[in-house]
Structures are given as C-alpha cells and as structure tokens.
C-alpha cells in the first residue's frame, strides 16, 4: 500500500514538473545585435533554434541568419507565417531571412511541421 502511495505521489510530481517545464516557464530572449541599420541575429538549427527567442526593435529591418547543423529533414525549412516567408535551410549553410516587423508584438517562426519553434519579439522603440 505504502509503495502505491509513493509511486503515485512521484507520478503526480512528474506530471506537474512536465507541465511547468514545457508550458508554463518563460524563456529568456536574446537581443539582436545592431549593425548599421539592420538588427542581426545568428541562429543555430539543431534540435531546435538556439537562441529561440530574439528580441528586436519594431519598425527596423531584421536579418536572421540561420545555420542548420543537422540532417534531420524536420528542420529543413524555417517558416515565418506572419511574413509569409519560408526558406530552405541546406545543411551547413548560412541562410539569411530579412524581415521588418512593422508593429511591436510577438512573431513566431517554426519549422514546417511546427515541432521547432522560436519567437521574434518586436519591442516598441
């Protein structure tokens, strides 16, 4: 009986941890570097986007340079659905995506299947 209670308690704790880790914890973003008039960020694609939250200023052009370092076909495309942009990311090659978020807000980018996700956070300024 006691083992059952312990096992169930551990199970419940695990469930809470899973829910918190995947859904309720916030990720910190990385601010894009500014060079000239363009805000630039370098993103590695391997099992996800690193970094996956990029903070930029709204109204200025943004250049995101993706480099895919894996062969898995899941990540062969990056899609910015709000900008109607999608790019093929050949393995080992740097691919630049240039967009201008006109209004402040969060713009999601993801692989084609939506398994890898990242956010472009445009702040007013």
């Amino acid at each position, binding site marked *: 009986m006691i083992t059952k209670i312990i096992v169930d308690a551990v199970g419940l704790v695990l469930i809470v941890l899973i829910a918190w*880790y*995947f*859904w309720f914890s916030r990720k910190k973003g990385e601010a894009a570097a500014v060079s000239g008039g363009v805000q630039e960020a370098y993103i590695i694609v391997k099992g996800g986007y690193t970094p996956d939250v990029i903070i930029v200023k709204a109204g200025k052009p943004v250049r995101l340079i993706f480099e895919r370092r894996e062969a898995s076909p899941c990540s062969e495309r990056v*899609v910015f659905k709000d900008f109607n942009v999608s790019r093929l990311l050949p393995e080992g090659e740097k691919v630049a995506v240039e967009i201008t978020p006109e209004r402040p807000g969060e713009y999601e980018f993801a692989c084609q299947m939506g398994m890898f996700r990242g956010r472009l956070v445009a702040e007013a300024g």
Partner: protein
Amino acid sequence: MEYDEDDDEGILMKVRGVEPVCEMGVPGSVRLSIAGMTCWRCALRVEEALNNMDGVESAVVNLSSAEAFVTYDTRKVSVSELAGAIRKEGFDVGTSCLTMGIKGMRCASCVSKIEDALNSTPGVVDAVVNPASESARVEYLPGLVDADTVEQAVVGAGYAVGRPSAEEPEDREQAARQREHATLMKKFWLSIIIGVPVMALSYPDYIGLGELLPRGSTALRIVWGFMGLLTLPVLLWAGNQFFIGAWNAFRHRSADMHTLIAIGISSAWIYSTVAVLFPWIFPRAELADVFYDVTAIVTALVVLGMALELRARSRTNEAIKKLMSLQARTARVIRDGKEEDIPVEEVVVGDIILVRPGEKVPVDGVVTEGSSAVDESMVTGESIPVEKSTGDEVIGATINKTGSFKFRASKVGKDTMLSQIIRMVQDAQGSKAPIQRVVDRVAGYFVPTVIIIGILAFMAWFTFGPEPQLIYAVVVFVSVLIIACPCALGLATPTSLMVGVGKGAENGILIKSGDALETAHKLNAIVLDKTGTITVGRPSLTDVVVSGGVTENDLLLYAASVERGSEHPLGEAIVEGARQRGLALLKADNFKAIPGHGVEAVVAGRRLLLGNIKLMRAEGVATGGAKAGAERLADEGKTPMYVAIDGSLAGLIAVADTVKEDSASAIRALKGLGLEVVMITGDNERTAQAIAREVGIDRVMAEVVPEDKAHQVRLLQLEGKKVGMVGDGINDAPALAQADVGMAIGTGTDVAMEASDITLVKGSLSKVATAIELSRATMRNIKENLFGAFVYNGLGIPVAAGLLYPFSGMLLSPIIAGAAMAFSSVTVVTNANRLRMWKPREVRG
C-alpha cells in the same frame, strides 16, 4: 577606356557599368540594380546612405529603373562595400550567384584564406566557403567580374577549382537525404537482425526451450544478460537519433517524437536490465521480467518507418526539382560580332543571344531577328507551341522548336520568370494553410500531454490493475509513448500542400500561399472581368454587310484603305481584318477625321465616308434598311460603322472585342463546379448582355467604372458569398485584393504575381476552373490526412493505455504500438503523394 571629364559618352558608358574603371586614383563608377525599393522614401534612404560613405563622390538612385548610379574613389571604397551599405538599408543588390567546388582544403584556416581571396576580388559582394561540401558560394556583380576571374582568385590562393558536388541547394538536400536514408536502413537491419532472436528468446516456451530455461533459473538469467548486451548497440547506435533529438528538444523546452521513442525504448531496456542484475529487489519473482525485444523491435520498426517516410517525402517535391532542372546552363551570346558560349549566370541585360532549333531559350528577352515556334508548356502549362517573331517576348527555359532566332536579354539571373516562379512556388510550399493553425496549437501540447497520459496510465495500472501490477504498468506506459505519432499530425498539411502547389506550377497555376489554396476551395461565386479575361481585350473585325453594288471584299478594302494610317483601335481592327483576307490596301488621299462622327478620304478616285449614323445624316446619306442591321449588330455587342461610297450607302462594317475561343467552355466548367459566375465590365448593359449570352453567364454587372469594381466585389461578399475575382492583375488590382481569392491572368513575362493570390501564367480562362479543382483536391487530401492522424492518435493512445482491458481483456503489446506508429506517418506521406497523380479535368478527357 580612359576617363575624360569632357566626354559625356565616356561617363555614360561607365555609369552603365559596362566597363569599370579600377585605376588608382581614378574615380570609378558603377550601376547597381537594387531590389525591394517600393517608394521614393526608400530610394532617398539608399541615396543618402551611399552619399554618406567615405569615397563616394556622387550617388543617384533611380526608383523606376531600381538602380543606383555611383561614382566613387576606387582607393577608398569597394563595390562590395557599396553593396553592403545598400543591404544595411534593408534592400537587396542585383547580383549573380555561383557555386564552385574547391579541392585541396585541408585545414580550418583554408576557409578564411579562400574567403579573403574571393572577397578582395573587385565585384565580389560576398563569398562563403563551406568546408563540409568543399564548395564556395560566391555572390558577385556580373557587370564587374565574371566567373573566370572568380575562379582565378581561388587558383591564385593555391587551390584547385572543380565542379561543385551538387549545384543547387535542392540537389544537396537530395544527397543529404540519400545519406540519411542509407544510415537509417543500416540501423534497421542491425536492429531487426538482433531483434528477431531476442524476441524469440523472450518466449522460450514458444520455441521449445521452456524446459531448458525455466523461470527463475540461472540459465535464463544468463540468456537475459546476453540479450541485454546484444540490444545495447541497438539502443545506443540505432536509436541514437532519438536520444540526441530528445535532448536537443528538451533543452529548448519542447518535446517531439524523439522524446517519446527515447523514453519508451530506454524505459524498456532499463527495467529489463534491473530485472537481470538485481532480481531480488522485486517483491515477487514474476516481476523480474525482461522487455529487450521491445527495445530492439520498436527501434527497428520506427527507424524503418523514418526511412520510408524520407523516401516518400523526397518525392513530394518533384515539381520544384523539375522546374529547377529546366534552367539552361549556357547561352550563345553574340559579343563584338562573335558567337560565344558562356554560362547562363554571366548573361547581362542587353546581350544578344542566338537560339537554334532544339535549344533552350536561356533567359527572358525580346526577339530581335528571325522567327520560330517555341514550346512554353513547362512554364505556362499550354501544350501548343507559340509562334514567335521580331518583337515578341520569349521566356527563359522554354524550348525552341523550328527556327533560329536572336533575342535581346531583358531579364537575367533571379529576375527571370522561371526564377520568380521557383521562388514563389518555394515560398508557397513553405507557407501555412489556415487549417494547420489548429494542428499547430495541438502540436505544441501534444507530446508533453502524451507523456502525462503515459504516467497517469502507469499510476492507474499500478494502483488498480491486476497482478503483476508493475509489469502491466510498464507495458502500458511504454505502449502509450510509442503509439503516439506527432509526426502524422505535423506532416498532414505541409506534405499535401507541397504536392498541391507543385502540381499547380506544372499546370501554369501559381498559388501564392497555403492561405490562397485553402480559400480557393471555399469559393462559391466567381467574378470575371470582361475585357482581357473573357474577351481578347482588343477589337477585331466581325461583320461586313454589303447593301450597295460592291462586293464584301471591295467594301472592306475601301474602308481599310481609309483607315490605313489609323491609330484608333477600331480602325486598326478593320485594317487587320483586311490583311487577314489578303487584301492589298490602296492609297488614301484627303484624309479627314471628323471627331465624334468618323472619317472621310478619297480612295481610287472615289469619296469614302466611314462612321456612325450621325456622319451619314450630316452628309445626307440615306441609311434606309441598313439601320435595322446596325441595331442588330449593336445588340450583339458589336460596334457597327456605316460605309458610304460617293454619297450613297455601300454597307456596314462591324468590329467587336471578340470572346476568347475557350471562354464559353471555361465558364461551363466553372458552373459545373457549382460556382455562380458573374461578369463585371465598364461596357453598357446591351453590349455586356450580348457577351454574357454568348458565353453563358447569367449575372452581369455592367457600366461599372474601374474604381468601383472592388466595391461591387464587396457587395457580393455581403450577400454571404466567398468571391473569387479574375482579372488581368493590372487594372483590377483593388478588386483582386478585395476578393477572397484574386486570380490574375498573366500576359508575357510581366506576371503580376504580387497583386494576386493565384496567378495563371499566360493562361486562358479554363485554368480558373483547373485552379479551383486543384485546390479542392488538395484540401480533400489534407482533410483525409488530418482525419487519419487525429483518429489514429485519438484511438491508438486510449487503447495503448489499456482502456479496452476492463471490457475485453485487450491490451496492446508495445511492439504492435511501434509498428502502428511507424506506418502511420508513412501512410500520411503516401496519401499526399497520391495527389501527384491528379490531373486537370480537360486532360482527363
């Protein structure tokens, strides 16, 4: 070429970038084409940025030609820096790209050495060396430097240049997929070869070893130990992508298929190994059981599924591969009077190119000499070759059939129609259909939810289940994780979309996005612009009615001779009509145009009047019986003109904007799809009705001024309809934008892709029906996939959790779960591939 300040032509030459000046201390000048400038403010921004650069003497940006003319000091600033400045403003510089293979790279420092050598070559904008593929991708300004010079720079740095292993990213992707496929198959064979004996040994009773290996015996424990060792390489090598993928995803606070499989197969292995090594920790002997077969067989099945899926997925994108392979490799350019074969990347705007029969037209341009029939089916989807002669546009990648001709290149590199089509198709294939938003929301929660369900199922079985509780709990936990297939959900929409959009491109239908494709299948009304869509768009001769003593041909001959030099479209139509009948025009004297009435002239000594009834009345010509004929012609939507010879009526000539050959059948097809077809036109009610009757349209919006078309579309939408609008994309832009789906019928190489959701490349109206049919077929396919994926997961997970056990005693083995999961995603991709067989109805016959 020397620089001479007084020589205007010299400056002009340099400004056009024909030959750059690179001598020390001498100002250079260059013309850079700039992409992405949409407004004068953009142009000003670029101009200011360039002028602010140290070393730039003057920079002028021309918005309409999208070019910058820069005069600069070559010692202080380079072209790549100029290009960099333009890029920083957020615009792109018109450049060519070249990928070349590099041999002899042995160290990391080679990369920067080659990159430096390339980047210091004047005219090279950017060079990136990829040591993995042993290639360099060089972006350069074709007017300033050519491929040979770029290669020389690499050779100069001490490396050999070869052909790149694969030229297009798509090709490289293909090669990578093949490698991946080979690896997966190796992993499959290893897992299955180990898995089958391991599975047999897991049930010694079934293979007649029950007496040799009784439960609880040391012999059995030793066999189990061997099984554990055998499956270790399966877990660690064949299954390594699951662990790597799971860890990478975990670091990004996400979870995917890899997470589920990794937890599933490792739980099974760890539990078994604990049972082998420490059987005494289990309170009861039968709990010490092994699941090594689960680890090996599930890995084998899932890896096989991934390999099959990869194979199937690489077929989904055949359309774009076909488009890319259309691109010509070389062009025969005439420079300085000599024919020269050069790579197509080096062709610049203005080059004169010779094309012989059977050859590909390398880039877009205008024919300057010769004539031929050209097969444009690969771009327009029209199977009949098109006649081309001087002044006609030719499209790159089309095939010259019969004769030789020369043409002047007007669009090269990424501006060609083919490049634009490829880019658009790629973008559309990667875009999302709104239907996927639901899936996306589900996908974000799916995997963690499955893990939670797995834990709950474990707890339930452990707490309330039959004995041995722990064994049942482990089995359901592993089964739940393994049967869940997020891939089937995630793949459902994009793969079908990719096939559907590609299929469209093959048929000359360019779909801008998944959104457009999805909306097109919901349309229930379609508005057709009359001029240029239903009709040819310019008047032509339709009727010649004689009422005097002249023959039809004589009447036409006189009328055409009067209009000989006319620039009025009605006059041109008459002249063209006479030409088609093979009439040789006569000389007209004393030509006089009478505004609002018509024209008069003297032809072959006879006085001719050609015009409306007002002209006849003013000249005192009796129109008599011809009046009824004129009214009948007007009722048919034609424009009748009276012809009088020497003061008496000779007959009527009518011209009209004629209906395209296939308009009526196309409209029938649209109605057959259940769409309400509406015609919109600026013409008067009578003319509009006449055309509508001819093509079988019931609803007409006549006398609509161009500005009001969008409003009329809006009114239709207020009736609750999903409205598609078909127009030429130039005059109808606001109406196209207002419509739920705007479809532009393209003409020539200037395809108005931006204004519309769907572009029918130089298409006839029949492609509208094809486009709607295609969108319906694609959406049906997507829905089948989604339905399948949801039903699969929705049924599979509860069954794996053991929901049926209390009622029927049924429990899923983790191995069955693995097989189901492996083949569910293959099924989705295979179903999407079925779309590749889709054919438009007209071809189906």
